[in-house]
């Protein structure tokens, strides 16, 4: 039954239905409402024998889950931004050990300057760690992806991040069709671990592996992701059959038939992009959109099929590889290898900067114009502010802290320094 509910609460309630046996949590905005809600449900006895640990750091949180998962428990945590980076070493470790931990990432920018609003810098920083990364467009998608994530993680013995845009989704109240316990139980079998810390059958887990076998171990991790490319659509199909919603999958196309230009993105901005596509179609432009749900594994062959017929692909991404440009667009380019498709990079929405529909429409027009887009294009940059700061830096080496200077320029700081 549909109900109006905050994204974080919807996710927490759904995770509770998945009956994690150990959850370890550390507060960080904008993920906090998820673990607050989960802690209440656990304490109220609504999550079976689940153990909820309030730990001393994100590094500790994931480490607790590493131990619990190796001991055969279904495990869950949520984090974001600085928290994800603080647990980075354990993020790689969990994947290397093949532990099917599920973690919600409430995507948020990474400082400095400290910024609590949404972009994808955090999970992008962990893209090579060996976790699967599934991106939700809306809260219904976020809820459904969590149930699928446990299934996927445990089937392949590989951890999964479910990425949902911080605030934009976590704090949005919208209609969500919450699953029931019967639904989840029918879809998600009990966790049957591949390897287990069990005194009746002792094994050593986490041995040192040298040059003689390390590459093979890494290849097998990659192979697992290749298997996931098959498992993700299969699980989506099953979910669709059971619940009537085609949530999940590798990617989703919108009005791409006959499209000459296709806009590609991750996460919630796809809603805005679809509206922009409607407007551009109304203008008579052959524009479509593709939403990437599974960023890891990266569905390059599926993308080739979805985008290969277009002349131009515009990747709108909420991340920046400083000194290079787009991260997602580089990967889309790789997927388009040898195809006559131009791939453009639009860096947008960093640190929570709004991405209005009008800006998407404008950037598509610019891309189609004779002049085209520079590579990469930064959406809605305030060049007056940037130029003023560059002039200041040129005039005087110690011209003050950049962030604070810029805040003065845009008038966010009350007092303008004399």
């Amino acid at each position, binding site marked *: 039954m549909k109900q109006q509910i905050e994204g974080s609460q919807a996710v927490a309630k759904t995770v509770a239905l998945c009956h994690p046996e150990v959850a370890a949590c550390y507060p960080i905005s904008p993920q906090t409402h998820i673990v607050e809600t989960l802690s209440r449900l656990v304490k109220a006895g609504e999550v*079976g024998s689940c153990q909820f640990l309030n730990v*001393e750091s994100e590094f500790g949180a994931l480490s607790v889950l590493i131990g619990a998962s190796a001991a055969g428990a279904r495990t869950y945590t949520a984090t974001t931004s600085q928290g994800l980076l603080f647990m980075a*070493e354990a993020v790689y470790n969990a994947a290397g050990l093949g532990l099917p931990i599920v973690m919600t990432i409430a995507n948020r920018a990474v400082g400095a300057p400290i910024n609590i609003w949404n972009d994808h810098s955090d999970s992008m920083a962990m893209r090579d760690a060996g976790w699967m990364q599934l991106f939700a467009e809306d809260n219904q998608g976020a809820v459904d992806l969590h149930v699928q994530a446990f299934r996927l993680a445990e089937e392949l013995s590989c951890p999964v991040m479910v990425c949902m845009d911080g605030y934009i989704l976590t704090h949005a109240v919208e209609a969500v069709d919450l699953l029931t316990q019967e639904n989840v139980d029918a879809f998600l079998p009990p966790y049957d671990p591949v390897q*287990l810390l069990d005194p009746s059958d002792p094994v*050593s*887990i*986490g041995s040192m592996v040298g040059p003689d076998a390390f590459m093979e171990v890494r290849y097998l991790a990659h192979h697992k992701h290749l298997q996931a490319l098959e498992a993700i659509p299969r699980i989506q199909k099953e979910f669709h059959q059971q619940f009537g919603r085609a949530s999940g999958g590798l990617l989703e196309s919108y009005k791409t038939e006959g499209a000459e230009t296709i806009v590609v993105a991750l996460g919630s901005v796809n809603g805005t992009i679809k509206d922009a596509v409607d407007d551009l179609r109304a203008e008579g432009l052959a524009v479509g959109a593709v939403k990437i749900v599974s960023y890891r594994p990266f569905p390059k062959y599926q993308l080739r099929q979805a985008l290969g017929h277009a002349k131009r692909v515009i990747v709108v991404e909420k991340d920046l590889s400083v000194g290079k440009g787009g991260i997602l667009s580089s990967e889309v380019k790789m997927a388009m290898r040898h195809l006559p498709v131009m791939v453009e990079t639009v860096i947008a929405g960093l640190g929570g900067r709004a991405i209005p529909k009008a800006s998407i429409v404008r950037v598509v027009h610019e891309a189609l114009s004779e002049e085209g887009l520079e590579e990469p294009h930064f959406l809605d940059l305030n060049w007056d502010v940037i130029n003023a700061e560059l002039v200041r830096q040129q005039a005087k080496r110690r011209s003050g802290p950049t962030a604070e200077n810029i805040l003065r320029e845009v008038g966010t700081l009350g007092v303008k320094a004399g």
Partner: protein
Amino acid sequence: MSYQQVKFYQTGTFTIGNRLLDEHNQTIQSQRDRTNSLNSGHRACQGCGEALGARYAVDAAMRAANKNLVAVNATGCLEVFSSPYPESAWQIPWMHSLFGNAPAVASGVAAAMRAKGKKETRVIAQGGDGATVDIGFGCLSGMFERNDDVLYICYDNEAYMNTGVQRSGSTPARAWTNTTQAVGTEPGNPSGIGKNLPAIAMAHHIPYVATASVADLHDLEAKVTKAMGFHGARYIHVHVPCPLGWKSDPALTIKVARMAVESGLYPLYEAEHGSVIDRTPIRRKVPVERYLELQGRFKHLFSDPPDVAGIAAIQAIADANIRRYGLVDQEVQGGT
């Protein structure tokens, strides 16, 4: 009829071999049904105090847990020498994750056992001093304050030995390491810094904290056994000489450890819920030189002329320990 209790020792007067003791007084390690949790064939150096300590400690824990035990290990010598793929010296379920997270991983294992109703399965975590007092300190403190049902054993060899002897927060005053070289105006590790982890553990008011030494393996086994009798967070800090890093004779590991105890530099005590409840009196007090002179890491103190002030400063640390924990028992001294 009056009788006098006779106490046997491992060295000096009243020495007795383990085999001559009553069976219930013999070490767990000497029993035929010992579990060999850390089996032979591992790659520890000759004279390794940590391998010895771990062997006794884990077997004692195994016996106390009725062989229903899971061990978590921090990165470090013990992990590396016991588990190079595809070999493993561990006969028990054993897991290594990272350098700084062993206490948290153990908390997770314990939580999983609780969630699954496997109340009989006990959990220990172990690491060296670097993993314990430095990089894993946050996770350790978290495990303590949550009173998670884990026995954490630190094998303290007073530096980062696995990476080639660098200073840790447990390196003693004036000791040479590769990052506290024996040069300059104050050669070796500066005095007056460092971390007393058993005291910090006690400050968490956890059920049981003890210090132990490979100089007294009966005592180490007894403390592990006692610790396993409690539930909640427990901590044992074991002093384990490292011939490589201490530049000591591998044949003298036990003697070096004993001199640390008998000089007062390494006090042996037990604490419950934050208060010291017992200590091992020093049987025959020795000056700190007897300990320091066995180790090349303190060689600079004995150059010509010797660093009298440096040695006196170390003696002052030993004397302070003796006063603080009441280590010199007049009656015991008089009796020997």
